[in-house]
């Protein structure tokens, strides 16, 4: 009887553990199946490098370059915001902050990480966009710049907390060795701690990029939504995620437009997959370098 119960438990937990694998396979399968007709009917490189996204015209055009460029520009902009703030926060917390400063800052960062993206979008739309529009005298505040800014703020807690972990993994003995040789705190930080945590910090940044690439709500609300190649960072853009979110409801099931949106989803999936693989490779190397094992 006891043996039987143990077998049951083992099965239940195995099934639960494999559930996520099942979901992942299901998602990938759906993406492939639904975008397959699109790739049969359209040339891949023509779609990816096509400049015109007119899915409802007759005949429709499914050039995705504007959407891919938009995602790229907005993500790059977000990085410019979140890397210095995130890494700076991590180093401050680990190396310079007093216990009481840490006690205040850390929970604040966690709260920031927990704010739903719709709130960030709302904040960008109601506060940041009009402010920038007035400040810079530009036609619209809903553009790539605003989206980058809001997205960057949103990705900052991810970068900050992961980079902080990386810095905290640097053994105290490295710091002691450096200080005992007569290095000051700044030298110890820049020449020992940061290089030792380097690949860990890179991983944090890459995962931050992943978060920015896949984010939908913020770019849908503040990026402006124009499917054209931007000439300046203050032009409105239409990133991939926003395109899918905005158009999926209107696309006729099984139509070319429908397949094209799934194709965008598939491309997005491969981009984030690549980002995660790179992050994993770097972080594995990081742990080896510090002698922390696998």
């Amino acid at each position, binding site marked *: 009887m006891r043996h039987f119960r143990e077998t049951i438990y083992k099965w239940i937990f195995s099934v639960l553990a494999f559930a996520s694998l099942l979901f992942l396979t299901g998602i990938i399968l759906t993406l492939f199946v639904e975008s397959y007709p699109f790739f049969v009917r359209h040339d891949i490189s023509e779609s990816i490098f096509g400049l015109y996204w007119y899915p409802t015209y007759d005949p429709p055009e499914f050039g995705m370059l504007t959407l891919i460029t938009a995602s790229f520009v907005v993500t790059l902009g977000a990085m410019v915001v979140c890397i210095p703030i995130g890494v700076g926060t991590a180093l401050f917390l680990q190396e310079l902050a007093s*216990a009481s400063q840490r006690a205040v800052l850390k929970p604040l960062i966690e709260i920031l990480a927990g704010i739903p993206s719709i709130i960030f979008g709302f904040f960008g739309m109601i506060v940041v966009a009009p402010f920038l529009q007035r400040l810079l005298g530009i036609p619209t505040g809903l553009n790539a710049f605003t989206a980058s800014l809001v997205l960057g703020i949103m990705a900052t807690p991810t970068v900050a907390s992961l980079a902080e972990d990386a810095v905290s993994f640097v*053994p105290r*003995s*490295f710091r*002691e*060795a*450096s*200080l*005992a*040789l*007569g*290095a*000051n705190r700044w*030298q110890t930080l820049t*020449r*020992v701690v940061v*290089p*030792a945590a380097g690949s860990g910090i890179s991983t944090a940044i890459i995962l931050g990029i992943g978060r920015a690439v896949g984010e939908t709500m913020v770019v849908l609300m503040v990026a402006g939504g124009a499917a054209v190649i931007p000439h300046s960072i203050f032009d409105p853009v239409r990133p991939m995620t926003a395109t899918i979110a905005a158009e999926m409801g209107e696309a006729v099931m099984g139509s070319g437009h429908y397949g094209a949106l799934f194709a965008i989803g598939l491309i997005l999936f491969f981009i984030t997959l690549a980002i995660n693989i790179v992050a994993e490779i770097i972080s594995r190397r990081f742990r080896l*370098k*510090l*002698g922390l094992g696998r």
Partner: protein
Amino acid sequence: MDCDVKIRARNIDFYYRRSRALKNISLDVLKKRVTALIGPSGCGKSTFIRLFNRMNDLIPGARVEGQILLDGFDIYHPKTDVVSLRRRVGMVFQKPNPFPKSIFDNLAYGLTITDVRDKEFIEHKVIDSLKKAALYNEVKDRLHDNALMLSGGQQQRLCIARCLAVEPEVILFDEPAASLDPISTRKIEELLLELKNEYTIVIVTHNMQQAARVSDYTAFMYLGELVEYGDTERIFTVPKEKMTEEYLSGKFG
């Protein structure tokens, strides 16, 4: 006698938050001699030598009372430059702690942080220090390999070489062989005996035989107090205190 004193500790009390880790310790470390601190773990010997290069400054809630004089100058004086103090008083830690950099860069580190740029000088200093630490022959063909690839004993000699490259006057050894095998330990001990001609050495060890082998003077500490201090041979043969005798004969520890 007095002119040979390198470090003079006077009535040292050390507090870690509320607890008193060191109790009224006075001790003179003589120039170019090996002084060993022995005692059961937790007796405060590591805490004590970490006062000599102010490593305890890093511990939040730590407080020192009393005076430590290096060549007559108070190292806890508010105007003391901690950075230059640590260049004069080097330290080798219990666990080998090379940086995750090349062997060469590990040794050059202490020089480049003081803006030494002369490449020839650095290279000369690196090789010279590796030779002094009896490591050069083992690593001369792979100076640019990562230092973490070396064995534990080699890593510890690298740390000693790294310390020598800065040209300290005093070297503090905090149980330098505690994590090493017997053969590596012997190499470190041989090295200590060579280094004492040029440097003032203070070594913490919980290994009594090691203290007997390498040191000229031995201090026995127990529960934060200095029980007995004197000539190593005398301490090991005719200890004055009953507690020293009991510790050395293995009655507790």
